[in-house]
């Protein structure tokens, strides 16, 4: 395939969009997956724990 300017630009424009959509779906799936809820809730609270020394 001839890699000229037009081809590269067309590729960038079209696949860039698909990539954007795929990424958005991936992130949303991860964020709202019910299995992750507990982890996130814990993480959210965890920084407020007393943290005066490293855990053994």
């Amino acid at each position, binding site marked *: 395939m001839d890699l000229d300017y037009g081809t590269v630009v067309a590729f*960038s424009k079209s696949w860039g969009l698909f990539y954007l959509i795929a990424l958005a779906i991936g992130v949303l799936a991860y964020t709202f997956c019910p299995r*992750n809820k507990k982890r996130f809730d814990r993480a959210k609270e965890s920084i407020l724990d007393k943290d005066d020394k490293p855990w053994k």
Partner: protein
Amino acid sequence: MPNFHRKLERSAIGFVLAIIVVASIGGFVEIAPLFTIDETVEKAPDMRVYTPLELAGRNIYLREGCYACHSQMIRTLRDEVERYGPYSLAVESQYDHPMLWGSKRTGPDLARVGGKYSDAWQVAHLRNPRDVVPVSVMPAYRWLEDNTLKTEDLGDHLLAMRRVGVPYTQAMIDNAPADAYGQATPDTDRAAGVSERYGEATNIRAFDGDPSRVTEMDALVAYLQILGKLTDVATAPAVAAKE
């Protein structure tokens, strides 16, 4: 998908790769095509390279941070074209390593300042801007006249420029210090070599008014006087009509 993502995050390396990939793509998509192109940079057969003196002047322009207040990019807007001249084309900064398009106009755009003022005006203005423009806020650059220009390593500078793609010939590189001297001392035999190597249209004169020595003022004024003049592709009638 969630499982995959969880693994990604648990092993920190996977997470690192994810950030790199996600973050790189935008830049890649925008920058990579610019290197494949003919369309981005127009053809300008008459485009010439900077002479050693002009390059030294350009380096002084960088050193003093002139780019912080002066742009060299006339945008495709009516008022800019009327104020500064035909809008800038990509090809005009083809040999600018790095480019000096700038981001702020505390002072006016300089993309086409070459030839707009006399050498004497430029020298007086650099010596103390308020002598010629009473309300100017530009710093005075008095020391430029006192500093003798360092020319002995200009050959190395041209060589470095050739390494990044500027078409300097071996003769240009070999004669760089002599050419820098010759361009600012019109009545010496070294002046002839400059027009031979860089073209008849090259400005050869004592830019700071003193032909006995080559100063940083000579170099900076030589550079300012060539701005917008390396090619006439932007000022040619065909382009002007397109506007």
